């Protein structure tokens, strides 16, 4: 039956949705399509590996790694992007910078850990079954945390002071400066949050599959499809499109072969852009 893979698909679409939210938050605020976001997923996955092999518990290593990624993301923003944005650099300059950063970070990982695939030391076990479909603890954790993060982000953007400030800075930086909203604080907060989300997604992806320096780069293709097809800069579009894309892909790989996942993502992307240039829910 197709029903079972679709349920499984819903379970594993979590990391992609979380990563898409993080990616979109940065775009919404700074107009940067941050290709280095790929490494926001890879780095914490490797950090988790380092912490667990240093003897920490998995959960503690996980939390430490994603917080560390948040801090790294703040640093990367201030070192590489703040100057360019203040100088009014073009959008393409920002993207190329992020691509350069992505290559730097990935190759540092490559030089330290080599290209070999590794496993995250996480014991995956089946915890319950509905009919023929069995669910592992990891899938359940992924699903629940995705839902929490989706609603949490919605609440954060709509109902908190920092959320209003994020939307205000995204609309007009200069107006915020006049109103006394510190754009720097908002930038740090958003890059931190987006680093944490990227880390969350990255460790989950590594736990579902395996860990290699290309983990993030392989995911970023799907991520691009999700955020553009969902409407660039639209957090809700990214959430919905993340689930739709994984389900379409699951259905198609069910009938064809798993190798066509990338192609499906790309065709969905080109079709949405051709038919509905602003994406599913409209962006920008």
């Amino acid at each position: 039956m197709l029903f079972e893979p679709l349920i499984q698909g819903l379970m594993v679409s979590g990391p992609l949705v979380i990563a898409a939210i993080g990616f979109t938050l940065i775009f919404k605020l700074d107009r940067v399509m941050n290709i280095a976001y790929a490494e926001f997923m890879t780095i914490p996955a490797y950090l988790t590996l380092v912490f667990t092999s240093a003897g920490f518990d998995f959960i503690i290593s996980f939390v430490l790694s994603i917080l560390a990624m948040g801090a790294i993301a703040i640093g990367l923003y201030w070192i590489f992007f703040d100057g360019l944005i203040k100088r009014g650099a073009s959008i393409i300059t920002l993207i190329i910078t992020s691509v350069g950063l992505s290559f730097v970070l990935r190759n540092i990982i490559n030089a330290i850990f080599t290209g070999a695939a590794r496993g995250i030391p996480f014991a995956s076990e089946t915890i319950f079954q509905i009919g023929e479909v069995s669910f592992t603890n990891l899938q359940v954790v992924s699903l629940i945390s995705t839902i929490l993060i989706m609603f949490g982000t919605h609440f954060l953007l709509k109902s908190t002071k920092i959320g209003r400030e994020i939307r205000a800075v995204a609309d007009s930086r200069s107006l915020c400066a006049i109103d006394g909203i510190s754009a720097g604080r908002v930038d740090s907060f958003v890059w931190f949050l987006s680093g944490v989300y990227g880390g969350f997604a990255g460790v989950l992806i590594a736990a579902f599959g395996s860990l290699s320096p290309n983990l993030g780069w392989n995911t970023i293709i799907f991520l691009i499809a999700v955020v553009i097809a969902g409407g660039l800069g639209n957090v809700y579009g990214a959430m919905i499109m993340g689930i739709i894309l994984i389900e379409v892909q699951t259905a198609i790989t069910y009938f064809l072969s798993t190798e066509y996942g990338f192609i499906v993502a790309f065709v969905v992307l080109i079709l949405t852009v051709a038919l509905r240039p602003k994406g599913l829910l409209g962006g920008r």
Partner: protein
Amino acid sequence: MFEYIIYALSIAMIYAIMALMVHLQFGLCGVLNFGIAGFCAIGAYSVAILGKLGYPFFLGLLVGIILCGILGFLIGKPLSHLSPDYLFVVTLAFGEIVRELTISEEWLTGGIRGIYPISNPLSFLPAYDIIYMIILLALLSALVVYSMKLKTSPFGKLMIGIRDNPLICEYIGKNVARTRLTIFILGSMITGIAGSLYAPLMGMVNPSQFSPIIAFTTVICLIVGGKEKALGAVVGALLLVFGVIYLFDFLPIPIIQYYKLVFSSLRYVIFGAILILFLRFRPKGLLG
């Protein structure tokens, strides 16, 4: 040693041709095609596959150009109406997908092992590698002259206008999307030619040759050389591809030979750093 230098120079010229196309698309018109590795692979595999079936090199070249043109049209058409950053990320994805296909479609491409050997179309001549290099040099020079002419032509002026202010060009009745699409398709086709010429030089094709590193290196060559100058592409390619990649590998320093894998990673760390520094402090490149 002499043969190696000829080989390295030929590779540098292939990169220079691709960087020149980035100059036309990005330096002049502001649309950055990051699917270079994809178009390059399509050109190279066309030559390799048709060559394996016994057809002449030029048929493969022609098929590659046509395929790149069609794909360029299909990708460029919907994206040329949008802000150029859409085109950038979609072509980035395209490059990766072509590589995934060359791995998965084993019946056509030989999968991860690729296709070999690919004989040089000039191999019946004496010293054919030097002649091949001279042909590459001739093609490159012709393209450089063409790019310079294009830049001062009305079409070139329009491209620069679109790069600097697409809205104004739209208001005065210019077709922004079509101009972007034209230069994008031209760039895709000539990148395909560069790929077709790359295959006999390597003597084989396989998916690992067409990783995003090709696109990355090409863009760095142009940014370092100077993105608004046609010669910038040539200078950048000679400096980075010939100078850094090939001569550096050849240096008889034991530590480099011993830690080859680590150094090949570190090289891209340095390249990335160079790219970021140039964008930040000298966005117009060496030739300015």
